[in-house]
């Protein structure tokens, strides 16, 4: 269970988003989202370069498909 401080930070950020123009909060969100994807894409690209890495990627795909929610 995450602590109370974490929920407080979620609330504080939501208040900031509500009170400021989109371009202000969007800049922060975009940097965060792009950084996460760029890091993971770079990691996957490194894995693709080796036989072992490609096997890991194939297993990852199977695991991700297992997580598809049913119904």
């Amino acid at each position: 269970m995450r602590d109370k401080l974490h929920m407080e930070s979620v609330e504080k950020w939501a208040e900031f988003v509500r009170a400021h123009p989109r371009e202000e909060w969007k800049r922060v969100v975009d940097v965060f989202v792009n950084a996460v994807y760029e890091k993971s894409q770079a990691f996957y690209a490194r894995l693709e370069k080796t036989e072992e890495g490609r096997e890991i990627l194939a297993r990852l795909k199977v695991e991700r498909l297992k997580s598809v929610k049913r119904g």
Partner: protein
Amino acid sequence: MNSHIADRRVGDRNILDAFALKFCAVVERHVKYIVVSGFVAISHGRRRTTEDIDMIIERMSKPEFISFHEDLINSGFHCMQSSKVGDVYDYLEEGDGVRYTNNENFFPPEMEVKFVKDELDELQMRTRKKLDFTGLDIWFSSIEFNIAFKEELLKSEKDMEDAKHLRIIYKDELDNNFIEEIKSKIRKLRLKQ
């Protein structure tokens, strides 16, 4: 930055927004849809990300689905479960979600697509909205629906934080009676044993 990563951004959109907009533009040509759950919160400024965006579409006949699926493939999307459109349609008919990525290696982000399955989904579809706050030309299920699902059904910490975030953003506009009505339907239709 690797060029294939940079290419996935469109204009000033982040990677997730660009993916969602491109996918929804194809869907819009074929069928009524809604985007639900995590991406709704993220597009309202929630500072988190997700590997998959959840979409519900109206039921389609097999020929209609084949045309839709082919449009997705021709637009650069790839289905993770199968390259055979008949199999993909069968998954949907059986109540499974099917996932599409915008790269042949099946790296995220992914769009998880499901058919409408009950009166709750039908009501979500009828009350869908474009939400100015997001700046995105996408049909979303209403904020009330998203809050109700997160608080009554999903209930993980991430979901409760998403609901709190949305409650703050829309604190003067929420229809709390509607949220309670949806929660009651969730208990009846999704939580019954």
